[in-house]
């Protein structure tokens, strides 16, 4: 028996979410009195692999195969299933992000394992196996019982404080069976920016809405992001107007994010906007209208003109940095 974690790396370095996942999985392994096995797919060196041990992995299964350099959902699902079978995994933990949403449902069918999607806490009980997850786009939660023998959980972003839990993990390499007829997709042109903080990974996000007035008014938002090491985001009308790129649109029909700090300037706080940001740890609202609904969601608020408040905020942050 074991709890299996699917980790993610970026150019050979684990993403922060991988440590959260391993830490979360090792807590479940304790509840089940079993061990934590972490799966790494890709070219990750041993000293990096060993880091997973620091967060509670007992064993690391490393799969290095050039055929896996591009993500084919069906192929990856098969690899995870092979490892889960080999390790007798009863629970599989995956991130609730693009990768997790692509793989977890397929794996659920392959292993006939019930899926708890977007869980944000440890299971409240293992018998019956009961998880807590967001529903109605964050307006409520549900307690969900997973009845199948194997369970798959995808962990909501930024919902679990990871802690170091030094174990010396063993590393094992694994050669999965990869039949050629499994490969049905091909990747052509790739366009990606590097060196920019990804909105979905960012710890701090500075976001602007229609109250910013025009595309040429984004200077203070970008500067504040720069001094705080933050990513930038926007409301839907702002990206619809073409003031900002579509990648920045957050909300029900855009990106769903959960940073530690979300600063909303000139955003009214419509329910569909909140659906994308309500899991943020701390929300700051800057708005001229004291009755704007964003203040109901915010932890800190300033009633004022963003074009005046933001430059002062930049100044004040610079003073402490």
């Amino acid at each position, binding site marked *: 028996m074991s709890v299996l974690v699917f980790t993610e790396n970026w150019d050979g370095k684990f993403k922060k979410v991988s440590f959260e996942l391993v830490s979360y999985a090792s807590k479940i392994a304790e509840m089940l009195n079993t061990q934590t096995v972490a799966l790494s797919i890709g070219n990750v060196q041993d000293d990096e692999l060993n880091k997973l041990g620091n967060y509670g992995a007992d064993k690391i299964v490393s799969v290095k195969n050039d055929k896996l350099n591009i*993500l084919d*959902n*069906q192929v990856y699902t098969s690899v995870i299933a092979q490892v889960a079978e080999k390790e007798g995994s009863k629970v599989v933990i995956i991130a*609730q992000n*693009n990768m997790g*949403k*692509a793989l*977890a*449902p*397929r794996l*659920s*069918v*392959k292993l*006939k394992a*019930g*899926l708890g999607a*977007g869980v944000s806490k440890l299971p409240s009980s293992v018998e019956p196996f009961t998880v*807590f*997850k967001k*529903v*109605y*786009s964050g*307006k*409520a939660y*549900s*307690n*969900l*019982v*997973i*009845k199948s023998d194997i369970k798959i959980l995808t962990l909501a972003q930024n919902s679990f404080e990871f802690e170091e839990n030094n174990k010396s993990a063993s590393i094992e390499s694994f050669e999965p069976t990869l039949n050629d007829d499994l490969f*049905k*997709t*091909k990747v*052509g*042109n*790739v366009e*990606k*920016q590097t060196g920019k903080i*990804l909105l979905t990974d960012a*710890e701090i996000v500075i976001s602007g809405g229609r109250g910013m007035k025009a595309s040429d008014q984004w200077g203070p938002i970008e500067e504040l992001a720069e001094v*705080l090491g933050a990513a930038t985001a926007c409301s839907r009308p702002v990206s619809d107007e073409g003031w900002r790129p*579509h990648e920045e649109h957050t909300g*029900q*029909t855009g990106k769903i994010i959960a940073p530690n*700090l979300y600063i909303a300037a000139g955003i009214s706080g419509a*329910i569909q906007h909140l659906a994308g940001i309500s899991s943020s*740890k*701390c929300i*700051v*609202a800057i708005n001229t209208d004291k009755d704007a609904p964003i*203040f*109901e969601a915010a*932890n*800190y*608020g*300033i*009633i004022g003109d963003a074009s005046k408040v933001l430059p002062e*905020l930049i100044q*004040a942050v610079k003073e*402490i940095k």
Partner: protein
Amino acid sequence: MKILVCLSNVPDTTTKAKFVNDNTALDTTGVQWIINPWDELALTRAIELKSDAANSIENITVITVGGKDSEPTMRKALAIGADDAVRIDAEPKDAYYVAAQIAEYVKSNPFDLIFSGIESADYNGSAVGGMVSEFLNIPSVSAVSSVNIDGGQVKITRDIDGGHEEVSSELPVLAIVQKGIAKEPMIAAMRGIMMARKKPLNVVAPMEVEVLTDVVNFELPQPKPPCKMIDPENVKELVNLLQNEAKVI
């Protein structure tokens, strides 16, 4: 080429979360039911693709797993421009159950391109599309922001960390769509609404499928402490609170 669009019938996105029966069911009094926003965009894209004769799309079918009360939503999809609709007559018990029903239908009624949305506005599972593809043993592409057809080949763009990439796939393929797939949802015109009444809405009996999960009950989020208001003349205080109270910078 034949296209299938999976439709989830969900409460309007402004619906307040209120629960009844010991917090085991949503209070649906006064709730407006809509096509899940992603599915509406997927349908829009399917219709756009069909309107270009070069793509030779014969047919767009929409499918839902749900009770009779989901029929108005199906009719709306027909009015927007789907050619026919299939309703698998069962309460959608969980994503696995729903996906198994859809896959079963597709096994005897094949499609080349299947669309599903990235997330339902109700149970937020992000699951049905991927599950259908695995049941059918066909490729799936997730986080899809554009789908084009070029000489019978389906060209898909998917989002990746920091950018996007082009994916080509063998058919049939299942595309799990998100923002970008279509700009604005298409709206039904009067003519479409008239025509929709005559379009087929086939009701299919469900097959026996095991349900792997049970919702025990719902909870509302913990009430949040009221927002602390900071004097706009004293922005330094905000930085102080963020640093020392919230500890987020």
